[in-house]
C-alpha cells in the first residue's frame, strides 16, 4: 500500500454530475422544487408583520391611537394622555427588513427622542450582538428629532455590522423626520443622506480589481496582487467588515431583501463583483480569491502541512450532499422568512466570534477538518461555492448553446 496522498478535486471545484444514478431522481427533484416554492409562499404570507401587535408587545402600558388610515409603514400612533407620538418605520438590514418604533416628545423648540425600539429584525444574531456591544443603540437616546441621523455623520457605525447599523438608522430617520414634519410641525432643517462611498467601499473595490488582475495576468505583479488580496480579504472582508457571502445573502436576494445602493454600497460592490464576474467573465472570483474563510482554511492547512484525501463516498456525493443541506436550509429560511435561520456556515462566527448554540461546534469542526483536508468546508459543505460554481456552469452551457445555434445558422 502506498502512502501517497492526492488532493482531489482541484481546489474549490466540485464534481460535475454525481447523482445521475439515483433512482426516482426526477420525482425527488420535483418534490424539492415544489416544496421550496410552497415554503416560500407560506413564509411570505406569514411574515407580514402584525405592526400593532408588535407595538403593543413593546409598549404594554400605553394606550395608542392610530393617527392616520395608513396600512403600510410608516405608521403613526398618538399616545393617549400625552402629546407624544410613536412612529413605526422600516429600514433594510443585511438579512432583511428592520422595523423600529420611535417615541418622540415635543420640547419647547423642537422634539426629542424619548424611546427607540427595535421591534423586528432578520439580522444574523452576530451582527446584532456587535451593535449591542458597540453601544450603537445608546447613541439614539435623547437625540433631537431634527438631527440628521446619518451613519458616519452624527451616528457612529460599528465595524463588522455596518449594513445593519445603516438599516436601523435609516428606519429611525424615516420615523423621526416624518413625526417631526407631520406631528410636531417642524420645518425640515436636517441633511438628507446622499450616496455614500467611503474607505471601506474603496478597499473592497480595490480588492476585487486586484483579484481580477491576479486571475488574468501571469506577470510578477499578479503574484503580489494575489498575496495582497489574500491578506486583504482575511483582514478586511473577514475580520473588519465581516461581509462573507453566505446562503442567507442568496436567500435574502430571492426574498427581495435588497438594500439600496445609496445606503449600502458595500453590499452592492460585493454582489456586483461576485455575480458580475460570473456573468461577464464566466469565473467564480469569490471562491477563488475573495472568500476570507477559504484563506483561513488554506492557512490552517499550511500550518499543519497535512493533505489528506477525502473518503471517495463523500467526495462523489458532495454535490448531492450540499444540495440536500441547502434544501433543508432554504426550507427553514423560506418558511420563517428569516435568512439567518438556515444559514449553517461558520463565517459570521469565525470573524465576529459570536454564535448561537451548536454554531459554536461547527466552527471548530470545520477548522479541524481544514487542518487535515485542504479546503474541507469548501469541498463538502459550502452552499455558496456550489451555487456560484453552478452559475458558472450554467453560463458555459448557455454560451455553448448560443455558439452552436449561431454556427448552425451560419
Amino acid at each position, binding site marked *: 500500500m502506498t502512502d501517497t496522498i492526492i488532493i482531489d478535486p482541484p481546489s474549490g471545484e466540485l464534481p460535475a454530475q454525481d447523482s445521475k444514478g439515483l433512482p426516482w431522481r426526477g420525482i425527488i427533484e420535483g418534490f424539492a422544487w415544489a416544496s421550496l416554492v410552497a415554503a416560500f409562499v407560506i413564509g411570505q404570507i406569514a411574515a407580514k408583520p402584525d405592526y400593532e401587535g408588535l407595538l403593543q408587545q413593546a409598549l404594554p402600558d400605553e394606550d395608542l391611537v392610530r393617527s392616520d388610515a395608513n396600512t403600510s409603514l410608516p405608521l403613526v400612533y398618538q399616545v393617549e394622555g400625552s402629546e407624544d407620538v410613536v412612529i413605526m418605520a422600516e429600514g433594510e438590514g443585511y438579512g432583511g427588513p428592520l422595523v423600529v418604533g420611535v417615541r418622540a416628545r415635543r420640547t419647547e423648540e423642537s422634539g426629542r427622542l424619548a424611546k427607540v425600539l427595535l421591534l423586528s429584525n432578520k439580522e444574523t444574531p452576530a451582527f446584532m450582538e456587535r451593535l449591542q456591544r458597540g453601544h450603537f443603540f445608546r447613541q439614539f437616546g435623547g437625540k433631537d428629532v431634527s438631527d440628521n441621523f446619518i451613519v458616519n455623520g452624527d451616528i457612529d457605525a460599528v465595524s463588522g455590522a455596518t449594513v445593519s447599523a445603516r438599516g436601523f438608522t435609516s428606519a429611525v430617520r424615516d420615523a423621526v423626520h416624518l413625526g417631526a414634519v407631520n406631528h410636531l410641525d417642524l420645518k425640515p432643517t436636517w441633511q438628507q443622506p446622499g450616496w455614500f462611498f467611503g474607505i471601506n467601499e474603496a478597499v473592497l473595490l480595490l480588492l476585487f480589481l486586484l483579484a481580477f488582475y491576479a486571475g488574468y495576468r501571469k506577470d510578477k505583479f499578479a503574484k503580489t496582487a494575489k498575496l495582497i488580496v489574500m491578506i486583504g480579504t482575511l483582514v478586511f472582508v473577514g475580520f473588519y467588515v465581516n461581509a462573507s457571502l453566505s446562503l442567507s445573502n442568496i436567500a435574502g436576494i430571492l426574498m427581495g431583501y435588497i438594500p439600496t445602493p445609496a445606503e449600502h454600497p458595500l453590499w452592492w460592490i460585493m454582489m456586483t463583483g461576485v455575480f458580475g464576474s460570473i456573468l461577464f467573465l464566466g469565473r467564480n472570483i469569490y471562491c477563488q480569491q475573495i472568500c476570507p474563510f477559504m484563506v483561513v482554511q488554506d492557512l490552517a492547512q499550511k500550518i499543519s502541512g497535512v493533505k489528506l484525501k477525502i473518503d471517495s463516498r463523500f467526495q462523489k456525493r458532495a454535490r448531492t450532499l450540499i444540495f440536500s443541506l441547502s434544501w433543508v436550509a432554504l426550507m427553514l429560511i423560506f418558511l420563517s422568512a428569516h435568512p439567518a435561520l438556515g444559514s449553517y456556515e461558520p463565517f459570521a462566527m469565525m470573524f465576529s466570534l459570536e454564535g448561537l448554540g451548536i454554531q459554536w461546534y461547527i466552527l471548530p469542526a*470545520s477548522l479541524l477538518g481544514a487542518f487535515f483536508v485542504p479546503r474541507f468546508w469548501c469541498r463538502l459543505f459550502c452552499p455558496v461555492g456550489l451555487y456560484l460554481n453552478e452559475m458558472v456552469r450554467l453560463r458555459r452551457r448557455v454560451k455553448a448553446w448560443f455558439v452552436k445555434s449561431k454556427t448552425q445558422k451560419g
Partner: protein
Amino acid sequence: MARKKKDKPWHLKFTWALSILMLLLVFGFFYQSFEEMLKIAPVQVAVERIMESE
C-alpha cells in the same frame, strides 16, 4: 465467491469520521433552527391569514 473487503487506509477512515461529525453538527444546527421556527408557527399563521381573507 465472496470478495474480501479491502481495508481502508487510516486517513480515509479519519476524513470519513470528520465528514460525519460535521454532518451531524449541521443537522444539529438545523434542529436548533427548526425549534426557533416552530416558535413563529408560520404554517399556522399563514393558514389563519388565508382563512381570514376569505
